[in-house]
């Protein structure tokens, strides 16, 4: 299953433990979670995984032809028959979640499908993530993790802003 375990660093963890009140800590986690999940979805819609610079593989002509038939109906505005960006149903991107493991680690993962699997129903999130990973369309590549360099800067800034606000309390 596609997932990334992520360490925010000793200093940030120490801060969270020592000076953030419980309610603030929760709010901080929500802010980080919202930032990361938004980033994952936006990058996937551009055809890029979160942690690498390469694009998803090109589609075969037969696939593009088949996707043209899907253009009718309420697709995401970023949907294009010629570009894979996980927006046919948006099922997988909608299922991207963020959770705290402990004081230093966070987990980015695909939530399991809630509905029951029956014959003729669409694949669940685990099957979908597995299938796409096999085809090279993984949104959390495990090979050579290289986070977009702005991500740690943004997280640091979210933390700094949070701490400055704490000074008013």
């Amino acid at each position, binding site marked *: 299953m596609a997932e990334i375990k992520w360490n925010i660093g000793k200093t940030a963890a120490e801060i969270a433990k020592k000076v953030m009140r419980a309610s603030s800590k929760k709010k901080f986690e929500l802010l980080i979670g919202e930032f990361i999940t938004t980033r994952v979805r936006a990058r996937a819609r551009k055809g890029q995984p979160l942690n690498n610079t390469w694009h998803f593989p090109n589609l075969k002509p037969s696939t593009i032809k088949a996707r043209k038939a899907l253009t009718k109906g309420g697709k995401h505005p970023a949907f294009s028959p010629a570009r894979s960006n996980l927006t046919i149903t948006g099922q997988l991107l909608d299922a991207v979640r963020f959770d705290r493991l402990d004081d230093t680690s966070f987990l980015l993962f695909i939530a399991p499908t809630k509905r029951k699997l029956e014959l003729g129903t669409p694949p669940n999130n685990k099957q979908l993530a597995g299938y796409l990973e096999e085809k090279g369309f993984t949104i959390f590549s495990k090979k050579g993790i290289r986070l977009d360099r702005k991500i740690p800067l*943004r997280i640091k800034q979210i933390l700094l802003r949070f701490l400055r606000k704490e*000074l008013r309390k």
Partner: protein
Amino acid sequence: MKFNLKDIFGVDVQDNEALRLAMAEALLTKIIDKTQGNKSRTGKPFKKYSKSYMNSLDFKAAGKTGKVNLTLSGDMLGLIDVTDESRNTVTLGWEESDEQGKAHGHITGNPKTKLPIRDFFGLNEKDLREVKNKFSDEISTIKTAKSSERDRAILRFIKSLEDDTGG
């Protein structure tokens, strides 16, 4: 952009770093909120996005609407920082050159790329009054109280994060 906190808040903060940074954060928040609410520095709405930009993949992938908020990845507004502070002044800006360049483009516009002026970086008199009013309770409390141990711990952490140039 430099702000004189004594002029804005009417309080001398040269010996109170905690209050100075809290005020800087209030100003920074106001700039971001205002920009995301489609208001320029002067308070007028920004010029609308061009059709070609609204049709771009970047625009659609970010899930943006036609509302002008200068937020695509969110990095430009998200990386505004307190770049300098001393005595009664704070300076807001960018340490990150990409985002500084992006902001400069919006503030001044670029006829070559047909980027219109969308000057978001600053606050008008009404904004400053609003920030001050929101702050009035904190000022009366903090002015008389010594910095708490918690405040000092927070300041130490802020310094350690600022010194961590590795991001």
